[in-house]
Every structure is written in structure tokens, then in C-alpha cells.
């Protein structure tokens, strides 16, 4: 038999001025199941709570209803009080008679009547409440960082510095990512390698960090605190433990015509190579598509010359399975393909290049040793025209609808560096808007115009074509309402950026949500910007949205703080209001698993007794309470009505509906 206690709060005059609290408490005394009803000035006060605790003990209450302010305000307070008195905290229901009643109604009669209904509704619900206990799940004290660019490096260093083990999984042969390809960085123009490579070295030397380069995520199981991840270590045909990075193999390799992807394909490299001088790990890798030995079986020169016997043509992909408490996704970006932008002549003219290619052309370690030379004939370009927003802010279907955010600043940087280094060069920039929010950013851009005399043209380019060996850039100058054609030697396209395509597979494995542009979705755009809605998964850098290096580093450190906050706990408390299937009713149709945004539902084969000694194995849904967030999407989707939500069960809500409608 249920023994319900009702407590009506005055909230000083906040409730009592419009709701006849004494009458409400009086009426509740005759409600079926109610054995105690009281009213008090401030239920949330120490004395009010004492009143509740005493009543629970004295009257042996099985459930309580507090008619007071919003549950968003004091539900936790009253639950704690109940718990202290030995009542399960989930046997407490709040009737919101302040925000939803006394504060919005003026007529005492009307408000009192409504308060009665609201309290009755809460009583109807609490009668169906069941004691719930928050579960616990253990935390594996190790983090996984996917992606070894500046975001992944920063997150890994911060987590490791706090004393936790971190693995960096990088799909390329070296960590460093896009930042390693850059020449200088805005707004201070310090050299990218100078600030990045020490951090790469820190990663390599950190006793808590394990770098798994040339590796990819193969499978992810588990949930927050206890992920189990399978990592594929791709065959690099070089024994990482033996290679000393001496580069003799690179010198001797006869197959030297592979495109150097680190230099954006602007020059070539041997089949066996170390991506760049400061690569971490400083270990060679063989491109199997290019290696003569791996393709034809004949050659083996590198093996012959390798002094430490590191070359292994028989090497195969290997798989490692490891456990992690938290995962940071930092997969980065790539510039978009320009195949839909033939009006800029990128495919037809060698001297039409992307900004990232220009970074390599200007980099001292690049294909031209930092001397700016046109790719077509190796001459110094005298007139350089930049085109911004190539594929950004494009809703026509050819490009991306978003602003890529970094192009305005790096174009200003390029223009400035060129004018600084080659003062006789004429530099033009076509722009739609110059967007430079950020500390010292607009000042930086203005310096390009005012100090370095870069010619900014408000307008867009319609066509780039080759005429008599010159690149003719035809565009509009909206300020002067003119159409201009600039005879240029080099054209640089600020191509839009997009998330690294491999992020799609990773997002699927992690059940992390992704938007229509393939950016990972954060849990809350303002207040939880580094967390994925999937518990235990955190987002850093460009994979979450366009951002520059300072922002990426901030986000990576924020991720690290979140990860550390998770890993210091030994156990995680789980929300007990989770979905739960009635296995006898479940028909194993998978609909609930399909709607679950968190991947909390899996299927298990379970043996059921049929009576008469017979058994039957059926496929039934199983909810992982550590992962379920309790939204209830699955409960409504379930065609057989097997799925229910603890704390908000169908029966409870139905009884609330009934209580409200009853006349």
C-alpha cells in the first residue's frame, strides 16, 4: 500500500498570495493514498527540509510530492532530503505551483484550483515511481587522440602532463598535420615549423605518450570510461624499432618519381621516404604503389643499403586493441577539390595554384627552398593575383555554404610576405568581404594594405585565362563599378576547406553526430563546444568547424581539461532515468537502435525458458545504462511497446494525462 506525503510550500508570499495553500494541503488529505499533507512557509529552508524528513520517518512514507517552485530549481534539494530520511530520491515528485501557477495567475480561486490539479497530477505520477539507483561504471585511465596535427598534439601533451597515458593515432607516416606544411603563421609571422616541431619532439619524448603513426581506427566498441578500440597499424615495410632515419635508402631508391604529397605534389620523392626532415617518428615508409620491389619483386636496393636491416618487404598490417576512458577526435581538414571551379583555370594552368601550394613554395624547406618561383618556368612572378572565397560561401552546389574563416588572414599574410621579400612584385587581392575578427587580426590585414601596399579589390573574378603567356584575371571592381582584367604571372586561389574525409568513418564508429558539411557536431553550440553529444568523445580543431591555429590550440586544451576531469574519476555515476526494454515483448526489430543518437542500444541473443523444460534463444534489445541519455526516442519508436523510460514511463505519463483531464 502506497503511503504518500504531500508538502505545499508558500514560498513566502510568492505562492501563498495567489494560491490558498492551506486549502490545497487540506484537500490533499482526502486524496487516495495520501497519508500526510502539510504546508509550510519555505519548504526549501533547513526547517522545511526537516519537516519533510520527519514526516517520511514518522509516517513511513513511500513517496512524496512537494508543491513548490520549478523542479529545475529545487528537485535536487528535495531528493537529497528524502535520501537523508531513508527514502529513495527518485520517489520524489515536484508539482510546479509557482512558475506554472501562482506567478502567472491573478485570480485566487482559479490559481488554487489549478494548484490542486497540478499536485494531484504529481501524486498520480509518484504512485507509479519506482526506486532508482544511479549505476556506476569504471573509468579506464587512458585517452585516445585521433589525429596528430596541432590539435591532437596539444590535447595529448596536456592530458599526458596531467599524468594520464595517451595514444596518438595518426594516419600519415608522421605527426604534424597541416600546420607542418605552413610557412609562417599569422598574426605574428613566426615560422610554423619553429613553433610546431618542438611540440612534436615533446610528444615523442613524453613517457606517457605513445605515437601510433601510419595507423587508422578500425573499430570502436564500448562507451564513456571504457572504450575498446581496434587500431590498424598499416605496413610501412620498415621496422620502426630499427630505422635510424639516416636517409641512405632515399638516396639509393631508383623509383624517384612519386608525387611529394607533403609538398602538395609540387615536386617528387622516392618510393621509400621520410615525409620531411623533422618528421616524428623519423622513420622511413615505402609507398607500395611506387616501390619497384613491391610491385615487380625485383629491386631490393634499399634493403641492400640499409645499415640496420630495417627494411622488411614482407611486413603486413597489424591490429592492436586497446582500452580508453576518453577519445579526442582531431582529424583536421583538407582544401576542397577545385574540379567545379574551372573558371579559375586551376587544371589548365600550372601557375594557378592554391594557397596551401603557395605555403610550400614559400617555405625554406619546400621544393624551391623558399624562393618564390612560378611552377611553369621557374621565373620570378612579377604580378601575383589572389582570389579569395574560392568555394566558400557558395550555396550553388559547387562549393561549401560556410565561410572557411582562415583564408582572409592567410591571404593577407601571403600578400604581405611577398611584398616584404620581393618589393618589386605587384600584389592584387580579389575579395568579397575581408573578415578579420580576432586579437590583432584587423591590424594585421590593414598593415598589408597600408604598409605593404597590397591592392585589395572588392569584387569577384569571373574568369582566368591564358593569353600570350600571361594569366588574364578578369573580375569586377565593385567600388569603381568596373570590370578589370589583370595581367598576372601567378594566381593564388584561397580554396575553401573541408573536414578531412576520413572523419565520416570515424564518426560512424564513434556514433558521434556529424552535420551536412561533415563537421562533427558539438554537444551545445555555446556551452558545450568541445564535447560530442556522445559521452566520452571530445572534439578539437577543424573537424568541428573552420578555425585558425590559436583557436584550435584553445579547443584542444579545453578538450584535455574535459578528458582529465573524466579520467581522474575512478567510477562514473550514471543517470538512472534510462530506457529499459521488456525482453518478453521485444521482437528484436532494431528500430530503437536506429533512432538512438548515442549508440546505447545493442542486441543480444538471450535464452528464454518456455516451460516444460524447453528454451528458446531470441534476439532482444539491450540498453547500456552508461551510454543512454534518457531522451525516450526509442520508447516511442518501439512498435511492440517493449521499450520504456525509467522515471518517465508510459504509465506515469498516461496517469498524469488522466489526472489533468479528470473533471
Amino acid at each position: 500500500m502506497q503511503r504518500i506525503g504531500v508538502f505545499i510550500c508558500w514560498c513566502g508570499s510568492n505562492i501563498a498570495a495567489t494560491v490558498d495553500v492551506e486549502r490545497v494541503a487540506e484537500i490533499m488529505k482526502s486524496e487516495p493514498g495520501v497519508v500526510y499533507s502539510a504546508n509550510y512557509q519555505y519548504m526549501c529552508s533547513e526547517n522545511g527540509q526537516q519537516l519533510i524528513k520527519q514526516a517520511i520517518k514518522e509516517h513511513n512514507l513511500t513517496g512524496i510530492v512537494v508543491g513548490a517552485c520549478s523542479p529545475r530549481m529545487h528537485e535536487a534539494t528535495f531528493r537529497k532530503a528524502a535520501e537523508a530520511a531513508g527514502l529513495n530520491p527518485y520517489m520524489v515528485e515536484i508539482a510546479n505551483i509557482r512558475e506554472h501557477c501562482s506567478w502567472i495567475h491573478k485570480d485566487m480561486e482559479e490559481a488554487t484550483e489549478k494548484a490542486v490539479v497540478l499536485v494531484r497530477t504529481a501524486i498520480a505520477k509518484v504512485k507509479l515511481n519506482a526506486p532508482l539507483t544511479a549505476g556506476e561504471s569504471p573509468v579506464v585511465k587512458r585517452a585516445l587522440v585521433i589525429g596528430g596535427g596541432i590539435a591532437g598534439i596539444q590535447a595529448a601533451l596536456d592530458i599526458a602532463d596531467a599524468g594520464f597515458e595517451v595514444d596518438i593515432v595518426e594516419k600519415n607516416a608522421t605527426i604534424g598535420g597541416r600546420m607542418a606544411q605552413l610557412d609562417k603563421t599569422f598574426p605574428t609571422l613566426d615560422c610554423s615549423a619553429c613553433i610546431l616541431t618542438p611540440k612534436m619532439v615533446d610528444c615523442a619524448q613524453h613517457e606517457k605518450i605513445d605515437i601510433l603513426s601510419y595507423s587508422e581506427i578500425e573499430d570502436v566498441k564500448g562507451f564513456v570510461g571504457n572504450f575498446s578500440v581496434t587500431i590498424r597499424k598499416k605496413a610501412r615495410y620498415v621496422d620502426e624499432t630499427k630505422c635510424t632515419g639516416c636517409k641512405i635508402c632515399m638516396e639509393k631508391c631508383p623509383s624517384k618519381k612519386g608525387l611529394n604529397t607533403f609538398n602538395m605534389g609540387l615536386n617528387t620523392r622516392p618510393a621509400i621516404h621520410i615525409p620531411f626532415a623533422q618528421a616524428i617518428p623519423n622513420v622511413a615508409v615505402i609507398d607500395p604503389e611506387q616501390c619497384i620491389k613491391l610491385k615487380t619483386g625485383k629491386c631490393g636496393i634499399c634493403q641492400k643499403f640499409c645499415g640496420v636491416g630495417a627494411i622488411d618487404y614482407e611486413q603486413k598490417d597489424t591490429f592492436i586493441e586497446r582500452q580508453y576512458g576518453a577519445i579526442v577526435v582531431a582529424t583536421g581538414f583538407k582544401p576542397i577539390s577545385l574540379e567545379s571551379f574551372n573558371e579559375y583555370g586551376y587544371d589548365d594552368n600550372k601557375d594557378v595554384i592554391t594557397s596551401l601550394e603557395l605555403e610550400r613554395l614559400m617555405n625554406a624547406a619546400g621544393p624551391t627552398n623558399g624562393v618564390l618561383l612560378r611552377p611553369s618556368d621557374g621565373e620570378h612572378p612579377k604580378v601575383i593575383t589572389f582570389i579569395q572565397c574560392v568555394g566558400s560561401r557558395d550555396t550553388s552546389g559547387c562549393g561549401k555554404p560556410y565561410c572557411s574563416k582562415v583564408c582572409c588572414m592567410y591571404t593577407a599574410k601571403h600578400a604581405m610576405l611577398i611584398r616584404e621579400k620581393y618589393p618589386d612584385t605587384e600584389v592584387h587581392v580579389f575579395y568579397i568581404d575581408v573578415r578579420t575578427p580576432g586579437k590583432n587580426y584587423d591590424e594585421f590585414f590593414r598593415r598589408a594594405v597600408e604598409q605593404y601596399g597590397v591592392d585589395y579589390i572588392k569584387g569577384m573574378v569571373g574568369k582566368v585565362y591564358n593569353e600570350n603567356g600571361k594569366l588574364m584575371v578578369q573580375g569586377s571592381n565593385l567600388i569603381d563599378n568596373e570590370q578589370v582584367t589583370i595581367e598576372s604571372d601567378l594566381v593564388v586561389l584561397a580554396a575553401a576547406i573541408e573536414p578531412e574525409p576520413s572523419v565520416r568513418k570515424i564518426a560512424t564508429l564513434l556514433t558521434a553526430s556529424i552535420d551536412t558539411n561533415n563537421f562533427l557536431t558539438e554537444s551545445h553550440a555555446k556551452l558545450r563546444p568541445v564535447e560530442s553529444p556522445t559521452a566520452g568523445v571530445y572534439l578539437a580543431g577543424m573537424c568541428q568547424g573552420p578555425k585558425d591555429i590559436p583557436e584550435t590550440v584553445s579547443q584542444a586544451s579545453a578538450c584535455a581539461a574535459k578528458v582529465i576531469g573524466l579520467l581522474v574519476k575512478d567510477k562514473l555515476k550514471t543517470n538512472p532515468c534510462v530506457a529499459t526494454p521488456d525482453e518478453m515483448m521485444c521482437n528484436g526489430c532494431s528500430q530503437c537502435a536506429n533512432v538512438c543518437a548515442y549508440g546505447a542500444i545493442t542486441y543480444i541473443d538471450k535464452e528464454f525458458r518456455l516451460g516444460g523444460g524447453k528454451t528458446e534463444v531470441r534476439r532482444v534489445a539491450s540498453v547500456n545504462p552508461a551510454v543512454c541519455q534518457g531522451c525516450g526516442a526509442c520508447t516511442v519508436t518501439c512498435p511492440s511497446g517493449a521499450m520504456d523510460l525509467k522515471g518517465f514511463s508510459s504509465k506515469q505519463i498516461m496517469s498524469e494525462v488522466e489526472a489533468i483531464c479528470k473533471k
Partner: protein
Amino acid sequence: MKISYYPGCTLKTKAKDLDVTARLCAKALGVEMEEIENWQCCGAVYPMATDEIATKLSAVRALDHAKHNGGKLLTLCSACHNVIKRTNEDMKTNDDIRFRANNYLQLDEPYGGEAEVLHYLEMLKTVVGFDNIKKAVVNPVKRKIGAYYGCLLLRPSGVMAFDNPENPTIIEDFIRAIGGTPVIYPFRNECCGAYVSLKNSDLPKQKSKKVLMSAKEKGAEEIITACPLCLYNLQVNGEGTLPVKYFTELLAEALGVQV
């Protein structure tokens, strides 16, 4: 095989060369072009205004005829192709235009964009195949030839779906098939000046000149086109910069077809 063919007004008069050579070459390649009955002039320009229905009806009539006669409608003149293809798209996707056009026409069965509009070049590529043309060539056209696309075949690319609007290849492939060397020049997809010639002859003069100069600079010895108006503008304004011909004339030459 037989294919329904829409010649259009100019091909019956000033551009007879285009029509005659096309038919003979098609025949030589095993395709019979069957001129549809009672065709009417397409109007030469696609009416963009969303409330223009009457001006689209002749195209719809031709399309409906093709729908019942093999399902394909072959076009040759770039302007006809542009008008008919875009009108067909309207009939397929624009409920308002389809409803009103069918209301006017009162066909036995409403027309909803079922026919496929095929340009002669597309026919050469997909029905005959450039490889087969290559085999049929008896008199390779060993010249440097600039393909002139103009605007009507390519744009708007979403509807025309003819080729890459900035970097088309179909006429170049055709030139290779008949033994010529294609010359790629940047103004091959720029407008010649079109109908503006009638009111302002300066603009077409500049535009046509630019096209021809651009082709000449890249080494072209002659220009080919599929459009009678382009041919006219380039010839009149070119002042002999380069000879301009219909692409079918070169096809006839290569196939050894006697006109």
C-alpha cells in the same frame, strides 16, 4: 536506327549546309534522321520569364511528337537545342508551367518531359561512338581546329548537362575522331554577341573578334561551330581572321560524303 529530328527555321534556309551535311553523315554512320511533321519554329531564344507559356508551346509540341516516336528528339542548331532542352526541363520539373502548357495544348495525354533531347554531337558520342567515327574516316582532316561552343550548348549547365561548362571536351573529341588536332583556347565558351547584332553591332564585333583572336593565338587554322548565328557573327565580324565552318561540314569531308 531511326531518330526523330527537329531541324528548325534557319537550317531550312540560310544554314542548309548544316542540315544537309548532318543528314548525309548520319546516314553514312547508320542513323536515319526522321524530320518530325509540322514542326514550328522554337523561337530561337528560351523565354526565361516564368509567366511565358505560349512561347514555349512549339517546343512542347515537338517534344510530345518525339515522345510518341521513339522517345528521343535530335537537335542540331545550338539555339533550338537550348530552347527545347530547357523547355523540356520545365515540363519535367515546373508544375506550374507543365499545368498551363498542357492546358493550352489539350494533348491526348499530358506531356511531362518524357522525351529525351539529344544534340547531334551527343548522338555522335553516345549513339554512334567517336571510335566508330574514327574507323569510318576516309579523309582525315589534318588541320588545327578550334572548337567554338559559344554559350547555348553549355549553359545553364545544370539544365543543359552537355559538358563541363568551363572546360568542355566533346567537340575536341570529335575533332580528334575526324583526324584533326583540337586547339584549346580560352574563349571557346564565350558568347559571340548573339542577337544583339541587330541593335548594337559593336558588341558582337568585339566579342567575335576576341573569340577568333584567342583561337588564332593558340594556333587554330579554322573554327567549327554548331550554331548558325555564331557562324554568322564570327564570319561577318571576323573579317577573315579565320575560316568558320559547321562541324558537320568537316564530318562530311572526313567521311568522304559527297554533298
